[in-house]
């Protein structure tokens, strides 16, 4: 049964578990259920990746209705990678939540918190596996509504305003996607991605299709926080509970990048997206601006969570500039960075979660002397930070290496320079944290390391950064086959 229905189960299991969570009493039980679900989902995702690499793309017809009439779920090399990222981060982050969430979220809301978390997981996985554009919109809204709720759970009252701002931005973005989908439906009469790709070829040169394309790209750009549409992101990541920051930073923007890739490469096809429309130039320009502005803003931040949030804006820039290259090497770099950035940002935000658990805050002042007070936590932060900078022997180096190679191959020397400047700025902002943690004295130097239930998930991700820096065969081969799917045209 699992063999046949695993694609549907990937979405249905968290969806059904979510209301169950809400029925459980506040306390440990909702957490246990969420952990079990996250691990089941991870197992299904691993199973799916093996299937895709063993026997090629998997297609599942919801309710047995044949596409394009019914909704098709489809797993190929590209979205298998995204599903793996989301499921893996979910499986690592939920155990962390067991200690961290009761400390940061109102005790009366614990069951609701996990219910929203499972909905967000369901939505993100749904976006990744669906082969139907309207279904994609619905899952996008499920995941977004759940993440607004999660963000608003932060203790600080600013969490409420951040969640509200994100709601306004996110809804405009999703509605833009909806308009674009409507225009495509008006021209083709279909909603299935593969069918759309076939039929759009006949009506490509019409103003309606161009308008639809523009709406969809802008909608996706809002969701993935591409500069200058990133304004919702820093506040949301800063004021959300630590677990939520880690989960969303590692998955939500990645899934939005996937939406952009899916539409531009599979649905519209690269001849249209990058030939008829000047998308390459627009994306490259905005991405360069994102890298520079994001990194410079990160350097000046006083709150480390906000610092990491601005760094995310810059890192998204790396992915988008790699997409704008539209070469096999560039797309490999983009998907590789998708994977590696999830690892490094997940580890960094979890390490900060440990700090918040002990110190109650994440501004520079509360990090003073933590190198001695919480040596294991700060060591994990440094490892992930090195990966973020792109130091050799870490995962971050691999993706930057591919990115630079891809830029050199095209002769895009300014991009090479921008990547180097961006890495230098990353070194500066990570160093600021390291300096405060290791070279300033704490008021109370007594050792107070975070409990192992928080350290274990943090170190798991930190070690993954080193492991995939030493042996990058798995992510590189995944990314290469994803790139060939995108360049191969038909899904």
């Amino acid at each position: 049964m699992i063999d046949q229905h695993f694609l549907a189960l990937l979405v249905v299991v968290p969806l059904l578990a979510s209301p169950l969570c809400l029925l459980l009493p506040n306390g440990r039980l909702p957490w246990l259920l969420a952990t079990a679900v996250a691990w089941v989902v991870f197992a299904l995702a691993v199973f799916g990746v093996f299937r895709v690499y063993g026997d090629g793309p998997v297609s599942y017809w919801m309710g047995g209705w044949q596409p394009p009439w019914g909704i098709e779920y489809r797993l190929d090399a590209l979205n298998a990678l995204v599903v793996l990222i989301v499921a893996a981060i979910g499986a690592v982050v939920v155990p962390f939540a067991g200690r961290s969430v009761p400390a940061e979220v109102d005790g009366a809301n614990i069951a609701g918190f996990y219910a929203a978390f499972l909905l967000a997981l369901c939505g993100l996985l749904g976006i990744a596996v669906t082969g139907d554009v309207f279904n994609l919109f619905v899952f996008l809204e499920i995941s977004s509504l759940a993440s607004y709720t999660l963000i608003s759970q932060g203790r600080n009252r600013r969490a409420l305003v951040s969640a509200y701002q994100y709601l306004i931005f996110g809804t405009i973005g999703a509605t833009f996607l909806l308009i674009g989908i409507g225009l495509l439906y008006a021209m083709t009469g279909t909603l299935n991605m593969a069918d759309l790709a076939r039929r759009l070829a006949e009506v490509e040169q019409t103003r309606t299709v161009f308008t639809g394309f523009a709406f969809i790209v802008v909608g996706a750009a809002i969701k993935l926080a591409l500069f200058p549409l990133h304004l919702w992101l820093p506040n949301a990541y800063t004021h959300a509970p630590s677990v939520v920051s880690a989960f969303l930073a590692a998955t939500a923007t990645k899934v939005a990048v996937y939406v952009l890739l899916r539409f531009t490469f599979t649905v519209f096809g690269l001849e249209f997206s990058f030939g008829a429309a000047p998308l390459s130039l627009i994306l490259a320009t905005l991405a360069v601006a994102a890298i520079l502005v994001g990194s410079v803003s990160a350097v000046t931040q006083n709150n480390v969570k906000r610092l990491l949030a601005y760094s995310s804006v810059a890192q998204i820039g790396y992915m988008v500039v790699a997409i704008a290259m539209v070469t096999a090497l560039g797309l490999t770099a983009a998907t590789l960075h998708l994977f590696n950035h999830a690892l490094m940002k997940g580890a960094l935000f979890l390490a900060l979660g440990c700090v918040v658990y002990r110190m109650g805050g994440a501004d520079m002042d509360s990090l003073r002397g933590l190198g001695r007070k919480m040596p294991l936590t700060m060591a994990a932060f440094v490892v992930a930070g090195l990966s973020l900078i792109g130091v050799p022997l870490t995962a971050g180096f691999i993706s930057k290496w591919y990115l630079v190679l891809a830029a050199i191959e095209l002769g895009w020397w300014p991009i090479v320079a921008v990547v180097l400047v961006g890495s230098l700025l990353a070194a500066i902002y990570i160093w600021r944290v390291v300096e405060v943690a290791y070279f300033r004295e704490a008021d109370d130097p007594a050792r107070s390391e975070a409990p192992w239930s928080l350290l274990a998930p943090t170190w798991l991700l930190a070690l993954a950064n080193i492991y995939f820096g030493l042996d990058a065969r798995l992510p590189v081969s995944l990314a290469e086959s994803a790139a060939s799917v995108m360049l191969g045209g038909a899904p």
Partner: protein
Amino acid sequence: MSLLFEHYNYWVAIFLMMTGFYTVISRGNLVKQVVGLNIFQASVFIFYISLAYVDGGATPIVKEGVEVYANPLPHVLILTAIVVGIATTALGLALIVRIKEAYGTIEEDEIREADQRDGKDSDA
């Protein structure tokens, strides 16, 4: 001229869309922003539904002697989108209630001032 009258449904949708969008951007009152967002979404609903109309078509219910039907699929899609819209509105209003409790105001500039007063990690 024909562009103006034959496709008046699209002009209505565009007018509503811009009205809603402008309201979201220009208003400082959070409830008014949500209202603007609703108008913006409603314009998309109208766009989808007018899309479904087929010239001379009847309502999509099987009946003897009727050959041409309006396309029912966009109607169904929009039912889903309306549910999404209601959920968004509900969540937005719930957040506004909590903001009002925490800040005592729902004006954007007053909230910003309150945040600046507690200082520290505010955005420049």
